């Protein structure tokens, strides 16, 4: 079944919701923000490792539970609700997928167990300009001495400010814009020639710009096929897109619930503001959008588990819809709260800030509509 969770999946979902609301609540997020943590929260991440969540997608032979994408989606949605900053999406979903889909047995057995145990985190570095454009890789990877030398830059790499291992898209042939000629490389954080510029971001999660200046990568650390890495990259990105969509869904639902609650408590003109029809309709519209987006996200997660051939379409569908939803709901959340929604003290601002970042991550609504059209062949 695509849409009905199994008993185990439901248990995982409940465990994730409990954990997030107890240990990674919005109150916790606010504390982290006030302390200037810039998204780094190793203590909580250790607790997540104990829950086994980094291994949800890791095959059993490499120390994971191989529980599947639908399960992972439940955890990410729960995380989205409280805006928690963690390596779950970038490491446990994106990093693990890269290795599972593109890694050799040797690579899998060195990296995956460490991820599953929560010992290392990863970051995928693709974009070099202001907008997501995965084929637009200009970073060069020149064959040298049985390995490769990487030179170029990457921008706004999520989790790049703390990741232990980077998965970097560079060009072994062709030129920026070509899908042919892209290769993925694994580069540890402390490699010579890699400079990491930590960024303070709108959502307080942080990110990094990377500069690679003659970074030497042994051939053994090429992930997947030399020059034919785009298909792998796109498949990995699709997992990231679907995971991000799940997070946006959680974020939107939580912001909506907060607003729904406010409509039923705030009074003006001697009545609940939820009694005004203009607000009622807009609340109902949001609800309608949430329901449809949930179907898309659930469908996309199931497509991954079922190994279907429409994953790319489902990923673009889910990410476009979820980005649209989060945009709408976070705006309405502020508007329907009036003055209080504009204050830093209220959580409404946290939702819109995180939403804008995840909306852009792995391609926004516009990118995915364009891609959806191409995938449908028009």
């Amino acid at each position, binding site marked *: 079944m695509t849409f009905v969770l199994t008993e185990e999946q439901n248990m995982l979902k409940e465990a994730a919701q409990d954990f997030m609301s107890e240990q990674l609540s919005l109150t916790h997020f606010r504390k982290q923000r006030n302390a200037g943590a810039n998204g780094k929260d190793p203590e909580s991440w250790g607790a997540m490792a104990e829950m086994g969540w980094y291994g949800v997608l890791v095959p059993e032979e490499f120390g994971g539970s191989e529980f599947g994408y639908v399960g992972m989606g439940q955890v990410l949605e729960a995380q989205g609700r409280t805006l928690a900053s963690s390596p779950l999406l970038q490491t446990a979903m994106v990093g693990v997928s890269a290795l599972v889909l593109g890694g050799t047995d040797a690579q899998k057995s060195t990296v995956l167990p460490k991820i599953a145990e929560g010992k290392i985190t990863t970051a995928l570095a693709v974009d070099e300009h202001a907008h997501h454009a995965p084929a637009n890789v200009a970073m060069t990877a020149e064959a040298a001495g049985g390995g490769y030398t990487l030179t170029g830059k990457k921008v706004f790499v999520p989790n790049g400010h703390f990741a232990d291992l980077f998965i970097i898209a560079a060009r072994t042939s062709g030129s920026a814009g070509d899908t042919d000629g892209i290769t993925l490389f694994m580069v540890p954080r402390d490699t010579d020639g890699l400079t990491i510029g930590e*960024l303070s971001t709108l959502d307080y999660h942080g990110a990094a710009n990377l500069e690679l200046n003659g970074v030497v990568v042994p051939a053994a650390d090429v992930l997947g096929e030399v020059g034919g890495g785009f298909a792998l990259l796109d498949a990995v990105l699709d997992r990231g897109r679907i995971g991000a969509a799940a997070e946006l869904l959680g974020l939107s639902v939580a912001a909506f619930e907060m607003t729904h609650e406010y409509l039923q408590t705030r009074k*003006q003109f001697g009545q609940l503001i939820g009694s005004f029809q*203009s607000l009622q309709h807009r609340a109902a519209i949001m609800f309608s959008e949430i329901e449809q987006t949930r179907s898309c996200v659930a469908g996309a997660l199931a497509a991954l588990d079922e190994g279907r051939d429409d994953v790319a379409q489902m990923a673009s569908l889910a990410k476009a819809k979820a980005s649209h939803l989060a945009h709408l709901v976070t705006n309405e959340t502020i508007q329907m709260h009036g003055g209080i929604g*504009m204050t830093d003290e209220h959580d409404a601002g946290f939702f819109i800030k995180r939403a804008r970042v995840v909306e852009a991550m792995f391609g926004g609504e516009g990118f995915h509509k364009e891609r959806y059209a191409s995938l449908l062949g028009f």
Partner: protein
Amino acid sequence: MADGMDPTLDQFRAETRAWLQENCPASMRTPQVEDETVWGGRKEKFKNPDSKLWLERMAAKGWTAPTWPKAYGGGGLTKEENLILQQELKRIKARPALNSFGLWMLGPVLLEYANEEQKQKFLPDIVNGKIRWCQGYSEPGAGSDLAGLQTKCEDKGDHWLVNGQKVWTSYADQADWIFCLVRTDTSKKHEGISFLLFDMESEGVEARPIKLISGSSPFCETFFNDVKVPKDHLVGRLNGGWEIAKRLLQYERSNISATGFGADRAGTPPLHERAKEYVGTDASGKLLDPDLRMRLADLAMDDKAFKLTVARMAEQSKAGEEVGHTASIVKYAAAKLNQKKTEMTVETLGYQGLGWEGEGFTDLELASNKAMLRAKANSIEGGTSEVNLNVIAKRVLGLKEHKG
């Protein structure tokens, strides 16, 4: 635009131009820098000393309030002369000499409702920027339903005694005086409100800044605890404050309309130009992202439509035509436009629009998301868009509320 028909206006233009040439300091003709904005008042620091000079010179001519009577420090200009002054100021890209709630909101209602003594006492210090005013309207329980306000004002014989709380009071911590709506009769709603002026340094006044989601702290919670106010500081009739309050809101909204929430920062090129840098263009100069291109065109059209509407109203009202109905949509439209513009700026800048502070982003990039966040208030401050649309539907379109 030529005023050639009227020789006295031609002369006024020539004199104004010459005076501005002589008196507007060079640095006051450069694009406004946020922290050099002059709001006046006791706490004004004049970060740029030229701004002090500029204010003093403009105030001496009464040109900070060009159309107010000379008797109260104003410029005494006719509408036509003021139009010329504004054109000449614009021509040399002069910064406003003074920004102030006193000029935009309070002054006009004092001219209309205050007694002679009050006008003499308060208007000149608005013109010369000596006193900065804040607006004490909203309360925790009275936002959209402003007339539900509870701040109590009692007659104690030789003074008023004020107790209560205001909220979202913009710049209360920077202001010298407050124009405040208070309840002088608890047995009625609208007819129990009075319009009171008092010094923020009075004993019992406390303003606590509240931080906005954009990171700045322009507004406050303001508390009044047994604040004594002289009897002659009540404007208009006792319990007749609601009419003044509403009138002032009209001025507030029309001022917003005229400036369109200040969406176009001087010196910043239009978004579609900036988009070329962030998105790239093809050989013919078209943006590489066709979807964004269409939406930026949509934005540019909205922007033009708004500006044309403001210009149309100005011309019609100058010709003595009634523009009230058109004016009713302007605050709503301005809010929507500014929100769309700032939101699309962040989107166009892509990752570069998503930095909060520090390295990796230019100042303009860092400012983009703060502007987007701040703009969310445009459809809340000065009355929400919902309330605005309710009024249009009922009063302008004559649509009746559905009962039962």
